[in-house]
């Protein structure tokens, strides 16, 4: 299949466009997504193409928006609700946690909620504590939700298309820093199933697991490490729920060393859970503790230098990989 280099935001738009063309039940609501085309231009042009019935602006009412999305999904439609910042999804948590995630079990398995919430998170450009969070761990913990965090344009497109075809509520978490990044995206039908990770770089010495905006940073760290003679395998789970445990464990059995990189703060993040799984499933095969590189346990500050200090940087990944190879001064555990 031919590939073109397009931006993450264009890939997302293609996915919406194709699925809207294919399925009359797909529609989008959000703040400023119609005429204005959305804050990150993901929905640009869709109003003109699909009309005001299927591309709707909303008032500032996140709980309501998410709630009507969930209701529409229960009624069998395919709503996409765009929430400007994942931080604002906190206003709709009841609808996510107590309605969307619970409906299937509460109906004995028959009721499904094919609801997609698109939003974006992460730090970037001094937007401060209420606009910079990485909140995937909150959704990850709630059974019934699917959690998707694409790092590349191709993944963004393929996963969003899949999201619009499956049956469960999806937290589709984009990253503000990725919208303008470019990457190859296959022409034509391109759908990526949930639960299938991607080895973004093959290697033999250490397994590094990263997602969303930590992925590009990790790939750069891997290059830097390669120059030091260290071969890093970089795994992008792409979907955190379901998680491709098989791919992760296979890689761990090969490298016997793991580093997990997340932008979210350390305490109670998804990295902790993946680490707990690895130590449970591969305890006897590990040559070093699973290293977690994560954000500081403090809200994200406005000051740009401190903002950078609050989340993992390339050098932090490099240091952790070296630590897991016992190459740094001394490993923490042995201190």
């Amino acid at each position, binding site marked *: 299949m031919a590939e073109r280099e397009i931006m993450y935001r264009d890939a997302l738009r293609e996915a919406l466009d194709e699925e809207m063309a294919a399925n009359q039940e797909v529609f989008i609501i959000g703040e400023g997504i119609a005429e204005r085309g959305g804050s990150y231009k993901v929905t640009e042009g869709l109003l003109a193409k699909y009309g005001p019935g299927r591309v709707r602006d909303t008032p500032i009412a996140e709980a309501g928006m998410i709630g*009507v999305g969930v*209701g529409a999904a*229960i*009624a069998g439609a395919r709503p996409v609700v765009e929430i400007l910042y994942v931080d604002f999804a906190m206003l709709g948590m009841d609808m996510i946690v107590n309605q969307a995630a619970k409906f299937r079990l*509460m*109906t004995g398995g028959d009721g499904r909620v094919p609801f997609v919430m698109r939003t974006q998170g992460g730090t970037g450009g001094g937007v401060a504590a209420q606009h910079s969070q990485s909140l995937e761990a909150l959704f990850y913990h709630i059974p019934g939700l699917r959690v998707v965090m694409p790092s590349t344009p191709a993944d963004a497109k393929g996963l969003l298309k899949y999201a619009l075809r499956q049956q469960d509520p999806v937290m589709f978490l984009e990253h503000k820093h990725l919208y303008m990044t470019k990457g190859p995206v296959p022409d034509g039908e391109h759908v990526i199933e949930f639960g299938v990770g991607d080895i973004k770089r093959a290697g033999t010495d250490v397994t590094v697991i990263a997602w969303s905006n930590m992925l590009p940073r990790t790939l750069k760290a891997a290059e830097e490490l390669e120059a030091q003679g260290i071969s890093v395998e970089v795994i992008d789970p792409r979907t955190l729920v379901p998680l491709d445990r098989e791919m992760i464990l296979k890689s761990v059995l090969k490298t016997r060393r793991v580093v997990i990189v997340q932008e979210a703060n350390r305490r109670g993040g998804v990295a902790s859970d993946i680490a707990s799984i690895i130590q449970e499933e591969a305890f006897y095969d590990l040559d070093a503790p699973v290293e977690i590189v994560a954000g500081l346990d403090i809200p994200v500050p406005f000051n740009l230098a401190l903002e950078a200090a609050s989340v993992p940087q390339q050098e932090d990944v490099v240091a952790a990989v070296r630590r897991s190879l016992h190459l740094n001064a001394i490993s923490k555990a042995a201190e």
Partner: protein
Amino acid sequence: MTFSRNEGETENLSVLGREMSARASKKNAYSQEFLEKIFRTAFKIRTFETEGIKLYRQGLIRGYFHPYLGQEGIATGVCAALKEGDYIASTHRGHGHCIAWGADVNKMVAELLQKDTGYCRGYGGSMHIADISVGNLGANGIVGAGTPLGVGAALAAQVRGSDAVTVTFTTDGASNNGTFLESLNLAAIWNLNFILVIENNQYAVSTRIEESTRETDLYKRGTAIGVESHQVDGNDPLAVYEMTLKAAETCRAGKGPVLIEAKTFRHMGHHVNDPGKYMPEDKLAYYMARDPVDRARASLREMADVDDATIAAIEAEIAEEFEKAVEFSKQSGEVTAEEFRAFAATY
């Protein structure tokens, strides 16, 4: 005993509400078949709740059970005015809505008894009965949550170009919750076929409505955001029916949502286990004297000249249906732990 605020409270309604009460009391306005249907529904709800409470007291039902006793007129009247293809969303006090929507009593009782044959296979219970195959979006354990869900169904219908109407049954308590404003406003700006029915029973558990808000005429909250809003006597099934019919017409004419505040009162405490001692006796007496089931029966008797024996036969039939449902449920099995674990593995 003070009664000042309540005397005549189901008569002093918004203009249209009074008109609907008048219309509902006109002789010859309804067919015998229709009046029988109304009575059957109201009585079936009454039976389900009264008998269900007995099962609860026997320890056969666990968890939550919020009786709909006293409010039967609302579910009955509203659902009678809707059509196939329409949607409803309900509350934590949801048995009545289910029944009025035509639910299978076997599956309802089985659900309350935690059985595999229940609406939710015993996974949901009283507060979570739903049947999306017939447009029932379900009861809800979160006060106020049914409103956005209902608006969502109405939105789905509009996107599909369907003229289906969605009714969310909600409560006085939910009217002070943010979901009320946010979702009704969405329905309004999008001109959705949505009817919000506030069952104003004037209590949230033991908290009186006057303690929760300065403005107890709840329909005014709709008016304030440009939504056509009315009050109706919730204890008069036919008035509720008329009001809903009119509201559904408004919706299907493309004029957007309608809010209906139905004034009513519980016949007992909030929950099976709540004796409801805090409910003023005189107020209870006022509403008891306007019992919706009695009124449905009286309409059938007086407006359609149906005799007492026929009515007794209907009642006996419904009682038997419930008994059979209990038998059916008792003989049903439960989902096994193995099945449950297999289900969990899909999460």
